[in-house]
């Protein structure tokens, strides 16, 4: 029998019996075959003894049951690890940070408590997926859009709590930012509501984020201070229309103006959708559909002469490559912008973007898609990427599947994604730092690192910054996976030397990644530890999540 750390067998069995009394025997899992799906399907430690796994799982159906479970866990000092839908693939899946924890699986709590059309919000329980909320909205014909992450089976709540992101307008893409109001069960079993939820009789829980006093919501994300049981989320009033426009620029140095345009377009609200960068000349695109296309069809086919020129480019540049682009009318850069709103407004916004670009970029080009009005039709016909119109699906799993462009089976992936400044200088510096490290450091050689070559264009999910995303495939080769872990750790340190920190990462790296946010002798982490000791003195909730360990385990952490 697998046991939680530092718990006697008698106490563990007593706790499991109590859990069964609370939720019913069929919702307490201890058999190996039932627990297997609580391992991390994309674990970089797969097929090793260090792979994270739970001792049991318990699945409550209500807040009362969560409270009772937490009280029992407190009594017997059993570590619990909370998941909502548990599909955090690439970031640990359903597996606990600390092996041997009991997974508190909230998937059965799947009620959509309210969707308010006129005030454009929803209040959901943890197990509600993007598909669930989308279908609910469609079945009732509500004029609302939901911002979805790529995996449609993900949890509206779990994704937000892990700082996940989506695809539509900037106000909605940052899922934690667009939440409004939480209900949280604290480690002592008490339930608190944040914001207006703390005011009995308030009707504005999911409308006014702050309530009164300190805004504490943030401490329940990427942490282990409570079990969130309800969350409000802001939705987007269904726009009359939507459209994509592409701006192209011919020269390497135009990257500066392209990024300035991207920022102005987004921050001023002129083009509120996720601004995706590409380089037709370097044969790369961050437009999500293109990333998936490459797995189905292989990378875009370029002429040999072109491929050779790309291979010789340094930090994405060579004079010969630029000349080749000019001669063959292949833009160095492109910028995909997305617009949502009344047709007239979209038209005017696109015109304004073109005026701005014409003033700044010599030889600029434009292409715009049709102005469309039906997200479902656009998604079915691939005339607009479904997630960009709030339609959930599983398309992005094409990126990783065995398919025409990727005949080699993979076991998953993990992402390295430091936050870098949103500027051309930021992009170029990150490329040159990582390219140099890749050339010179043995830990980075012979490892399949996605995106790095020939040039990495950052992801625009969050406003005001870029994520410089590099990926690692998880394979059947244990040694290769271990080498990828080592490479990842090396990249973390290199990034931190330049002030670039992760926004989110796999549990394997959370201690290191959080440790690098080390200003004033790690005073931020020490503050988290002070909070941990105050709200969870026995350390029963998700020990180790994002580097926050209970006092009695702090010395042991890796």
């Amino acid at each position, binding site marked *: 029998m697998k046991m939680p750390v530092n718990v006697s067998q008698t106490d563990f069995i007593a706790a499991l019996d109590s859990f069964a009394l609370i939720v019913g025997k069929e*919702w307490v*899992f201890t058999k190996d*075959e*039932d627990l*297997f*799906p*609580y*391992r991390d*399907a*994309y674990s970089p430690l797969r097929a090793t003894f260090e792979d994270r796994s739970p001792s049991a*799982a318990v*699945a409550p159906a209500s807040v009362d049951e969560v409270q009772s479970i937490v009280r029992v866990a407190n009594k017997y000092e059993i570590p619990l690890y909370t998941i909502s*839908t*548990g*599909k955090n*693939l690439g970031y640990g*899946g*359903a597996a606990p940070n600390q092996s041997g924890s009991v997974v508190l*699986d909230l*998937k*059965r709590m799947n009620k959509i408590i309210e969707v308010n059309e006129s005030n454009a919000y929803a209040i959901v329980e943890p*197990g509600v997926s993007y*598909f669930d909320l989308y279908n609910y909205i469609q079945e009732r014909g509500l004029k609302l859009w939901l911002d979805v992450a790529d995996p*449609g*089976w993900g949890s509206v709540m779990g994704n937000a709590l892990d700082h996940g992101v989506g695809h539509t307008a900037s106000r909605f893409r940052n899922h934690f930012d667009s939440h409004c109001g939480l209900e949280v069960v604290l480690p002592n079993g008490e339930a608190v509501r944040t914001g207006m939820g703390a005011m009995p009789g308030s009707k504005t829980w999911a409308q006014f984020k702050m309530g009164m006093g300190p805004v504490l919501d943030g401490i329940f994300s990427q942490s282990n201070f409570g079990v969130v049981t309800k969350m409000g989320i802001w939705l987007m009033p269904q726009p009359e229309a939507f459209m994509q426009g592409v701006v192209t620029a011919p020269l390497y140095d135009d990257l500066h103006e392209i990024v300035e345009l991207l920022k102005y377009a987004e921050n001023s609200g002129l083009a509120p959708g996720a601004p995706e960068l590409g380089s037709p000349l370097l044969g790369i695109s961050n437009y999500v559909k293109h990333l*998936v296309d490459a797995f*189905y069809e292989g990378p875009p086919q370029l002429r040999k002469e072109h491929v050779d020129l790309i291979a010789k480019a340094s930090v994405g540049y060579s004079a010969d490559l630029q000349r080749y682009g000019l001669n063959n009318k292949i833009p160095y850069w492109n910028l995909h912008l997305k617009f949502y709103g009344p047709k007239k407004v979209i038209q005017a916004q696109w015109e304004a973007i073109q005026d701005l670009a014409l003033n700044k970029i010599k030889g600029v080009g434009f292409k715009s898609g049709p102005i469309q009005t039906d997200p479902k039709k656009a998604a079915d016909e*691939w005339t607009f990427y479904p997630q960009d119109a709030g339609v959930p*699906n*599983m*398309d992005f*799993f*094409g990126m*990783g*599947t*065995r*398919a*025409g462009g990727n*005949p080699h*089976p*993979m*076991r*998953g992936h993990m992402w390295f994604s430091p936050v870098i400044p949103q500027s051309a200088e930021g992009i170029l510096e990150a490329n040159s730092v990582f390219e140099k490290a890749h050339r010179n450091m043995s830990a980075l050689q012979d490892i399949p690192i996605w995106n790095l070559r020939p040039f990495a264009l950052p992801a625009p999910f969050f406003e005001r910054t870029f994520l410089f995303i590099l990926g690692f495939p998880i394979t059947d080769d244990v040694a290769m996976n271990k080498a990828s872990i080592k490479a990842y750790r090396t990249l973390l340190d290199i990034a931190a030397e330049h002030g670039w920190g992760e926004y989110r990462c796999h549990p394997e790296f959370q201690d290191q990644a959080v440790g690098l946010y080390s200003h004033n002798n790690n005073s931020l982490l020490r503050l988290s530890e002070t909070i941990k000791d105050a709200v969870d003195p026995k350390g029963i909730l998700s020990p180790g999540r994002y580097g926050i360990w209970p006092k009695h385990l702090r010395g042991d952490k890796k």
Partner: protein
Amino acid sequence: MSAVNSKSLLIFFLSTLVSFVSISANSSSEEQEGKKVFDKWCGICHGKRERMPGTASLAIKYDGNLPAALEERTDMSAEFIRYYVRNGVMIMPAFRATEISNAELDLLVDYLKAKK
């Protein structure tokens, strides 16, 4: 429309007609429940459509020797279906009993096995 296209379209129509007839003949509420489980958890990647990650992967694996879309398979045993649901394969994760309960898994197995 080319001759090849119109021929494959005709076969497509005929085969959908056949499967429609066979479904409506033994369609039971259990089968419909099984189909619901399939649509919710499997069809999202294994549907018979373009750009379906599961279907694309099986198309490469079987290279025409077996249908790539699971709903067209007649060779899968109950154990085979249960194994992949609870264990996953490659980038497909395993599914927990809180996602697909044992009772739902039975319905799914019956639904997929009923395909003859």
